[in-house]
């Protein structure tokens, strides 16, 4: 077996220049029959160092493969909620890329205006935010979705245990990652909410578990304030109004509820269109008439991919590139050391008449045995440990294959330094003491 034919070697820019005069005098017509696996025998003698290198470089490959999985996991989780909700249109605040990629705030009653647009069959209020609360004895971060539980869009689609929310208040559907079971009562603010169903079809765009509540419950949990804070706000408003000389204290008192912040706020309106209605046309109508922004689900996915997920993807790509480069450098140095230790043997091989391809094969095979061995170790390790990662690691065969190809090419590149030394070794080195 030969990894590089002669013609390929001659066209290899770095290696090609290194053939000293003897190489040029060697006929390429002669078919060399050598089948002795020199690389294998050499590694067998140095198996301790070989195995240690495989373990070290293999761990680097494990991290590269884990990062592939983290990237896929992030993309999957970042898009899962959008895909699972899948309305025809997402209506958000004007010029905002919400509700996931960017904050969007709308008054709740806007969904009535959207419903009135021709072509719209259903328009549902939708609220989404992240909180951190004590669940059991642990502080857990999770995302809450508030939706119209009486036939509105945006609720859980697939419930694998229990049922969907059936009453206006104090029921929830949760992701099992939250660590709750059917029938558990979860305190959120002033009230406790009973877990009536479990769903695992989606997580938040950050990979946190989701909790579905009715819209009023979700708004209450979001805007729930401390009593002291409510009293302070009333006092501040009262002082502001009393500065106006035309208002009596009684009138000021009466005006306070009107000036307090509104809790009937949503992040988006989810729209289902009537059959046969053009999405683009309806979206344009909503944007022009209501001064809102409208996105299809595909556009919403693209917003996430180009927005929040893009920098993470670039970050992981950079890390993976760095780690692969480090792996190649390590293999390269190890192969260089292996080759340097064999320089006299290589000179002897040349004196005995071994063609360069025998030496090239030995160096490249060692490099590839190290690289492939390390990759296989990394592959086995990550496929047996990915569940231990706190974030979802989604391992895709295609990614493994691409990483393998990159590692394989890297292994060949790593052998260049060793090859360079092996090929410039003069046979005369074998003579003398």
């Amino acid at each position, binding site marked *: 077996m030969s990894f590089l034919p002669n013609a390929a070697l001659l066209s290899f820019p770095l290696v090609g220049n290194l053939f000293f005069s003897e190489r040029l005098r060697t006929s390429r017509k002669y078919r060399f029959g050598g089948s002795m696996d020199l690389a294998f025998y050499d590694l067998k003698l140095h198996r301790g160092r070989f195995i240690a290198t495989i373990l070290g470089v293999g761990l680097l490959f494990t991290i590269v493969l884990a990062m592939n999985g983290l990237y896929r996991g992030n993309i999957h989780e970042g898009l899962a909620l959008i895909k699972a909700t899948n309305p025809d249109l997402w209506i958000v605040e004007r010029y905002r890329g919400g509700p996931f990629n960017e904050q969007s705030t709308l008054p709740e009653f806007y969904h009535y205006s959207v419903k009135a647009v021709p072509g719209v069959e259903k328009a549902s209020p939708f609220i989404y935010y992240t909180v951190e609360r004590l669940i059991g004895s642990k502080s857990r971060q999770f995302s809450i979705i508030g939706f119209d539980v009486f036939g509105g869009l945006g609720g859980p689609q697939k419930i694998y245990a229990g049922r969907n929310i059936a009453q206006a208040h104090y029921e929830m559907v949760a992701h099992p990652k939250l660590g709750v079971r059917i029938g558990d009562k979860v305190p959120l603010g002033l009230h406790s909410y009973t877990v009536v169903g479990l769903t695992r079809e989606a997580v938040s765009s950050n990979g946190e578990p989701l909790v579905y509540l009715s819209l009023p419950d979700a708004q209450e949990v979001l805007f729930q304030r401390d009593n002291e804070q409510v009293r302070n706000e009333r006092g501040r408003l009262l002082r502001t109004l009393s500065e106006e000389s035309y208002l009596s204290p009684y009138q000021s008192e009466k005006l306070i509820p009107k000036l307090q912040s509104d809790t009937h706020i949503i992040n988006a309106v989810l729209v289902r269109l009537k059959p046969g209605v053009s999405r683009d046309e309806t979206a344009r109508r909503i944007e022009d008439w209501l001064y809102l922004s409208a996105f299809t689900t595909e556009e919403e996915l693209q917003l996430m991919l180009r927005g929040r997920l893009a920098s993470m993807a670039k970050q992981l790509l950079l890390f993976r590139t760095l780690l692969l480069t480090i792996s190649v450098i390590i293999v390269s140095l190890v192969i260089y050391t292996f080759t340097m230790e064999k320089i006299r043997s290589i000179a002897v091989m040349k004196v005995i008449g071994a063609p360069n391809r025998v030496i090239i094969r030995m160096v490249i095979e060692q490099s590839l045995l190290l690289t492939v061995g390390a990759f296989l170790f990394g592959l086995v390790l990550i496929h047996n440990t990915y569940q231990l990662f706190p974030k979802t690691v989604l391992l895709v065969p295609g990614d493994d294959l691409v990483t393998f190809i990159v590692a394989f090419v890297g292994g060949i590149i790593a052998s260049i330094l060793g090859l360079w030394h092996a090929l410039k070794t*003069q046979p005369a080195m074998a003579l003398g003491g």
Partner: protein
Amino acid sequence: MGILRIEGLSKIFGSGHLEVRALEDINLSVSKGDLVALLGPSGSGKTTLLLCISLILDPTGGKIVFDNQTIFQKNGWAGVDVRRIRREKIGFIFQSHNLIPFLTAKQNVLFPLNLIGLGKEEAESQAMELLKYMEIADRADYLPALLSGGEQQRVAIARALANKAKLILADEPTASLDTGRGKKVMELLKKIAKENRSAVIVVTHDIRMIEGFDYVYELKDGRIGGEKN
């Protein structure tokens, strides 16, 4: 019958005032079965001459005819595949054995057989025969590091014989051995020359080792100073 003929061979290193004439006007003829010694002090040009005969070093001038084929003349190597000639027709014995350390004794002998494309079974049986001939078959599966100096040199000779070489070149083959073992190695080389009809050229500085040689050439300042029968 001549196996090697060298006419007017010269080798010059460097140029101008740095020029060193390592070999000058060397003429040599070696026939099948000849046992030839190249004697000389350090720096006399013995190893340079051996490198030229081995087709490793390019001579500056002269002519080399090997096995009835002109392989070097004025204009350089005459379009020959030098490594092919070495693996098929020349056997080498080095001063420090130079066995490949990660191959066993048998694998070291198999290596040149493998290079000439001999089938696996045939090569294995030939390698074992050679090791038996060298009386080292019981050590066939040992790595060189586990063999004594004498055993290593016997394996090295077996390797040099593997390709049924027409010419065996030995560079100070006894330098790393004690006198007793050195003499045994020389006896082996004599035996090979007589039984295999291979020409053997031995470079040595130890006059005690060349007893019974057919020709002894003495090199001095790059020239063959004397010939003894």
